[in-house]
């Protein structure tokens, strides 16, 4: 027997009822925050649940208690900690009281000096000018909180040029920060579109392009995706945990990371006269740096020796030279030879 579908009018009524429930929840949670914040003394459970203005009293006591607990959890997810307060010596049967935990909730801007605040506002705003920041949204939020907390005028923040990328970045950040799986339509370099679901483990940027790295359900491997190639996102759902040994630095890739199934240890040298910061900018903090002869040695695993030789040549001016393995040096010489032949 086929099920009789709900008539359209009934579906509208259901949607309207759900919308009203959501509005009621918003009002109840905000009002709970307001009365706890406004009250000079902790409020008892009864005072809260029996307050008709809040809306718990319309339900059964047990349901109301559960709803109250969920609302506290919601506030805590927003950074507002509602703590249980019990007088010393109070019996276990005595009713709980509740108050906002000021120390755990509120920032303490007086700990930041005026010089700190000026430096930070400038530094964070400068950094927001970097193209392709995957954490742009939370950083703007941090700048706003910092300046607001110090009573400073918020700086004019540079806007994103592409509004659609704004929505994608926001969805990626939301999924990452809440540890919810993200489903998206992705277009690769060949223009092929696929639907992927990824547990986002890390976010990073290289040369002005932002990427996410995470466990791709389709391949069951940790993959890297360019965020500007995400065409469409769905609402994140499904929780996950990031493995304790995950390190996003391993994903700050080089051109020599992409070919070949296996990697080969390689080593390069830099002269001692090159500032350490310059070497670290080139090496991305990957591999190991150690004193060597009259300079610095960089050891790193590479998948493509020829691409590694090309990378080394691009940094010749700073004195970067291949050390090992011999095949790397051969690739390096070969590239020089081909370039000379092309200009002979």
């Amino acid at each position, binding site marked *: 027997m086929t099920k009789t579908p709900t008539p359209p009018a009934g579906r509208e009524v259901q949607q309207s009822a759900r919308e009203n429930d959501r509005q009621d929840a918003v009002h109840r949670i905000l009002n709970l925050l307001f009365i706890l914040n406004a009250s000079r003394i902790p409020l008892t459970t009864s005072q809260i649940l029996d307050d008709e203005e809040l809306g718990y009293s319309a339900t059964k006591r047990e349901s109301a208690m559960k709803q109250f607990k969920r609302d506290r959890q919601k506030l805590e997810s927003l950074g507002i900690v509602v703590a249980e307060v019990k007088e010393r010596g109070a019996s276990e049967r005595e009713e709980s009281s509740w108050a906002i935990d000021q120390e755990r909730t509120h920032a303490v801007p007086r700990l930041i000096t005026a010089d700190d605040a000026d430096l930070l506002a400038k530094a964070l705003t400068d950094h927001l000018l970097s193209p392709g920041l995957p954490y742009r949204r939370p950083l703007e939020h941090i700048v706003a909180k910092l300046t607001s907390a110090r009573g400073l005028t918020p700086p004019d923040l540079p806007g994103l040029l592409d509004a659609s990328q704004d929505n994608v970045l926001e969805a990626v950040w939301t999924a990452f920060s809440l540890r919810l799986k993200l489903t998206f339509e992705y277009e690769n370099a060949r223009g092929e579109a696929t639907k992927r679901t990824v547990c986002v483990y890390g976010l990073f940027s290289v040369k002005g392009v932002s990427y996410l790295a995470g466990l791709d359900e389709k391949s069951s491997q940790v993959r890297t995706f360019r965020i500007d190639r995400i065409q469409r996102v769905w609402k994140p759902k499904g929780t996950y945990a990031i493995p304790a040994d995950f390190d996003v630095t391993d994903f700050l890739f080089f051109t020599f990371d992409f070919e070949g199934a296996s990697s080969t240890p390689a080593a390069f040298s830099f002269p001692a006269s090159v500032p350490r910061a310059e070497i670290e900018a080139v090496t991305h903090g990957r591999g190991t740096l150690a004193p060597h002869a009259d300079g610095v040695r960089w050891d790193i695993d590479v998948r493509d020796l020829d691409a590694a030789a090309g990378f080394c040549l691009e*940094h010749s001016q700073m004195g970067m030279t291949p050390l090992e393995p011999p095949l790397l040096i051969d690739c390096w010489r070969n590239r020089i030879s081909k370039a000379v032949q092309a200009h002979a």
Partner: protein
Amino acid sequence: MPRKPALHGDALIGTCIELLQVLSDSPTQTAPFAQTATLLQVSEDQLTSAVDTLCGLAHRQSGARVAVFIEDDTISLLGDVATFHAIRLSLQEGMVLAHVLNLLNIDASVRERVERAMLSLETVDATPQPDTIGSVSIYGRFYQQIEIAIQDCVRLILTYRSSNDTAPRPRTVDPLAIKQDRDAAYLIGWDVEKDAQRLYRLDRIDNVAYTDDSVEIHPWENASIQQSLTAGALKATVSFPSKETLEQAGWAGIADTDGDADQNGRVRATVYIADEEWLFDRVLGSGGQIIIESPSDLRQRLVEYAHRLASRIS
């Protein structure tokens, strides 16, 4: 720009809380309407709905109400019963802040004060978490010192390695500002000895020392990084194996491309180069794929450079 949908659920709650914080932290408990919408990343309609929502909040027992209203393009919060000051950063926001402070090499004492003030207490005292946010540092080790010198108008001695130097050497510099592009961050400064404006890559600065002198007034040029890097530069014609390779190169000195690809798929571009060895490194790195077409003496100097380079390894 498409109209933003109405706020509801978590987004509405978050916006209302942030609005209360902005108003509470203002000395006058007011905020300009349009600027606040931008600050909270909502539309003006969404901000209005947040104000309306706040107006509906009340405490029956005490009779307290949230008194917030919009008048003359200003949002105002009356009284102190609804004031709600800035809350600590979330765990993930704390990670972003920690990452950026590390990237900029902000010193430990400033970081500790900021973290104690702003981060959730669980984050401050917690065991280290996996590194999940990353980017390549382009700011070197002295961003903070330089920024302080800029703010306080202090003349500096920079120990700096330019691309033509084999080792860093000291220069007396009046700092003006820090700018950045995709690949590097630069100090715009005035070289006092050369009496000229210069760009200094932050990651090539080996040391910074403050002098007792203040900066002087200079005829600064408001040029972009690209303009500064290519001012007085050598002009060359360079060909790339494909349009895609040209675009991926992302060189700041590419002025224009020479129309469509030729029959071999190669694309030519006019390139301005402040430093020819920089170009040579990229040509050699491409293994002959990128070719200097003209001028001919530049091609000859590439070959000489290549021979010198090859002799590094016997």
